[in-house]
């Protein structure tokens, strides 16, 4: 099942090309891009957000992480450092995913369910995956909202 998710993620990436978001019946898909750093150079993946009743459930499916390493991930609001590049804007955390650890192959999947108001508009501008041991290391980021305001 897990491998199935990875395959789906790769297929989605290929279909989207440079576009990072896809709307559909299965929810909204955001594609992770690698940040300009040397951490986990092969890291990639997607985030799928699905509205369920009064909540939004978001599942991250990522690969290329350091095997057996602890990570944290968050939705962030648009920060002050950029108005057009959410991943570079340094915004505050608005919704945190449960901490997770990559498997022996460097794959991981984690889901959070939250109040949509917490990530509405600029409140949910991007999703970061950080090293748990050093949160300033952010291998990958998925832009959700490309422009502030």
């Amino acid at each position, binding site marked *: 099942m897990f491998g199935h998710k990875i395959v789906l993620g790769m297929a989605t990436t290929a279909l989207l090309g440079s576009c990072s978001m896809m709307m559909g019946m299965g929810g909204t898909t955001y594609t992770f891009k690698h940040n300009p750093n040397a951490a986990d150079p092969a890291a990639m993946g997607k985030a799928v957000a699905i509205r369920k009743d009064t909540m939004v459930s978001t599942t991250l499916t990522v690969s290329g992480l350091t095997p057996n390493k602890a990570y944290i991930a*968050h939705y*962030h*609001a648009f*920060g*002050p*450092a950029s108005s057009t590049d959410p991943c570079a804007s*340094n*915004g*505050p*955390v608005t*919704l*945190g995913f449960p901490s997770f650890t990559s498997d022996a192959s460097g794959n991981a999947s984690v889901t959070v369910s939250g109040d949509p108001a917490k990530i509405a508009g600029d409140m949910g501008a991007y999703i970061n995956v*950080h090293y748990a*041991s*050093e*949160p*300033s290391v952010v291998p990958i980021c998925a832009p959700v909202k490309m422009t502030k305001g």
Partner: protein
Amino acid sequence: MFRRVLISPLILSSFMLTPASAATLQLFPFKALGTAGGVSGQLSVRTLSPTQSVSTLTLRGLTPGRAYAAHYHALGKASAEPCASQGPITLGFPAFKANARGQATILLRADPARIAGTLGAYVNVHTASDLTVVPLCAALVKTGAARGTPVAADSVTVKVGDNLFQPASLSVPAGTMVTWIHTGQITHNVLSLTVADLKSPDLRPGDRYSYTFKTPGTYTYYCSYHDGMSATITVTNR
């Protein structure tokens, strides 16, 4: 630009925190006098009750192993500047020696009345062998301030822990420099959505970052790496 406000790690000891306006703890930096180089420190005055206060000197850059004395002085007549006013001693700290690294921490418990107003205008640190040698002085009253009126500290500190700011809520007068001191184990930062230049670099254990709040208002700041790690500073008119 960040580098101008990132201060090297210092000995932190017990003087973390404080709303200066809360009157429970006030912080006063020592300034080096004369040719004494590299010597610095801070005086914290914690008022525990109407009859009990604790003054703590945290000093560094002293001559290792050397004996020193320190005293509260009343405001003298020689100058409106407390440290130059040559006032009489009103209360003495216990005699002490700098450790092998030139550091010292000295506590003094006293009735706050003994150092109230101009009775505790400044604290001098003297060499014990020659009391005329005064490498450090901390002024507790400001030049030009109404005599007998204690003033709030011009700087306060906030602990940056894992994963919280402490205190989470702080009220300071305009013009106060707030210094965040990383006391945790993992990287944090200090950022604001509303104040563009309130932005620290990544702070690691022992790092400091300072920002002076000049305009009254309520400011929320946060760490961009951790869920729920935010706090508020209210800046009031002086």
